[in-house]
């Protein structure tokens, strides 16, 4: 039923604008795969190329091993769930779901049967005769998915399908989507700029920026072992500290920074003299007096913020504030703004990456 999707040296240009650059990727059979990236990075463009709405300028797309060059969107084994849903407003919900079967010449009885089956799956059994405009946002969302599944695609493509929903519903739909995917067992390619969605649902994630694929990996991988400065700064909160490599040994590097010498993991083979950035997550920064840390940063407090389970400290960094998130154990001292502070971290919690593009501004 399902199939793998292979993007081979994919390049897409719009006139002079290079929207997708040299993407090589193999999305496995039955995988829940997400593209994550900021707005305008080329996610939709890739998806539309896979479904056949725009052609690659260079490179090729294979679905189930077959080159898709020259086949139109109506000939590909893919189905797209549109960002705007694109439900047919004049057709009933059941007619919407069975549209793909109707145009394939499937008989009325069978169509109805399939529609009922899918309606049941999306828990809308008794709502088949309504018009899409008579459904709620979340229900419409599910109808759009059911409509795409009705044609039994090998690959389901979803373009930010949850972006129009409110937060509560979005979280509910995440589990729903995952459940549907496990049930039908086909390949899902999911697009989002919401990292929460990508991290919770996907088997693997591709992080994109300006048309370039920065990293592919599992959620854990991408969070714990970012491959580039962009990924480190885009996925989750992270504190960047810039510096120059002064020593590299046994998987660790030492960096000369504004806060003195700091050490972190060397995942990318940095050599002395390289410009680099050290990333340390807010929850891995602690008050120095509370432990024995091999790295220490002396700076001043800019702000303190209370948030229930956590208390956030904003400290003067080298370019932007350093954020420290402390678990609220009832013993966190109150700092006045401008007062000196010392925070520390363990070297194996920090990752050092070549200096490069950041996700901020």
């Amino acid at each position, binding site marked *: 039923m399902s199939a793998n999707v292979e993007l081979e040296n994919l390049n*897409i240009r*719009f006139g002079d604008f290079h929207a997708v650059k040299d993407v090589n990727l193999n999305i496995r059979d039955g995988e829940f795969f997400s593209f994550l990236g900021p707005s305008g990075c080329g996610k939709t463009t890739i998806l539309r190329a896979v479904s056949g709405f*725009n*052609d*690659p*300028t260079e490179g090729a797309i294979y679905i189930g091993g077959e080159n898709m060059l020259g086949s*139109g969107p109506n000939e590909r084994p893919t189905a797209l769930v549109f960002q705007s849903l694109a439900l047919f407003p004049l057709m009933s919900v059941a007619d919407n779901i069975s549209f793909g079967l109707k145009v394939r010449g499937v008989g009325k009885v069978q169509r109805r049967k399939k529609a009922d089956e899918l309606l049941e799956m999306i828990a809308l059994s008794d709502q088949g005769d309504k018009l899409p405009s008579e459904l709620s946002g979340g229900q419409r969302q599910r109808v759009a998915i059911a409509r795409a599944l009705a044609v039994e695609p090998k690959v389901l493509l979803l373009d930010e399908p949850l972006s129009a929903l409110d937060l509560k519903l979005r979280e509910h739909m995440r589990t729903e989507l995952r459940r549907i995917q496990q049930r039908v067992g086909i390949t899902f390619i999911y697009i989002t700029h919401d990292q929460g969605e990508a991290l919770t649902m996907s088997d693997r994630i591709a992080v994109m920026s300006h048309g370039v694929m920065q990293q592919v990996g599992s959620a854990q991988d991408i969070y714990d072992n970012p491959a580039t400065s962009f990924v480190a700064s885009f996925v989750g909160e992270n504190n960047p500290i810039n510096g120059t490599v002064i020593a590299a040994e046994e998987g660790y590097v030492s960096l000369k920074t504004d806060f003195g010498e700091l050490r972190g993991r060397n995942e990318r083979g940095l050599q002395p003299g390289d410009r680099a950035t050290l990333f340390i997550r807010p929850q891995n920064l602690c008050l120095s007096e509370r432990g024995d840390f091999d790295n220490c940063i002396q700076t001043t407090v800019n702000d303190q913020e209370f948030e229930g389970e956590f208390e956030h400290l904003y400290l003067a960094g080298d370019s932007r504030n350093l954020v420290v998130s402390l678990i609220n154990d009832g013993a966190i001292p109150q700092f006045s703004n401008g007062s000196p502070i010392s925070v520390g971290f363990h070297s194996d919690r920090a990752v050092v990456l070549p200096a490069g593009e950041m996700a901020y501004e």
Partner: protein
Amino acid sequence: MNNLLLPIASLIGAGLVILGLMFYRRSQHATGSGFGHFLRRNGVFVSSYLILSLLGWIFFMIILPQLYMVDFSFSHNLPPSKIGGPEDVYTTQNYEYLLFGSPGSEDAFNWLHLKVFLRTILAAVVVTIIDLALCYPVAYYMAQSASSGKLRMMALCLLLPFWVNEILRAFAFRILFGSGGVFNNVLMGMGLIDQPVDFIRADVGLYAGLSYAYLLLMIFPLYNAIESLDHSQIEAAKDLGCPWWRVHFEVVMPFAKPGIASGCTMVFMLSCGALAAPQILGGPSSLWFTQIIYQWFNTGGNWPLGAAYALVLLVVCIIFVMAVMRLFKVSFGEIIK
């Protein structure tokens, strides 16, 4: 000479089609030629429907006939057997005729036709102004003061008379203004006059009938334009001490400019191209320019001459539209809504 038109026209047409298809959404797609993309986007059936329809309509109904009419207006009036023969050469005699009359005439200019021409243009301008003056208050009332129920009623009432055939509308004015018509009866009954007044000869019927015929085309553009004006702007102007009539000249009318331009263009164009109303309501001694054209095609039996006259009329209309666009600083798209 007629052999010249077809190749030229085909070239222009082919050029247009190729240009259109080459430029076809160039920027929107990544690869492939424009035509291929067009085919892929629309499919074979829809593509051929679009291309055939547009070829048929734009090319064979809009462009070629107009071009041929230009060509035709420069030809001699020949019987079919001589067309394409040695006598079939270009001539400007048809246009000279409008200006100078037949070569044998003693007058330096063809005053008869030139006068009719100027009178038509002038009368069309007058009708346009009358309509603007008549419709502006109503459009303003509909747009800014009327409640929605009243508005629907008024719109319906405005539309109704215009589904009545234009001949019948002119006929109604003939009944009103004829020598035994309603107005003469009323005036005589009141003892104001003792002889029927010849309203038709005085062209009163014609002006009233023409203004009547195109009211709708003035009122709706005006209404649409005024309707989009925020009422609080008018109130603000009043509040700042602007007298009511200046509110109209300084706030409402400048805002409604596209509507005024649109209405005036339509009314002018239709009045100077009117044929039925002048035929029915025109006095025996006063002709409308279209009536002369009609005569060349009908009793006069000189089609090229009629085509030349028609072309002059068309040029005047084009000049008028361009002048309005300039004067009111509106775009073509705003005139046609």
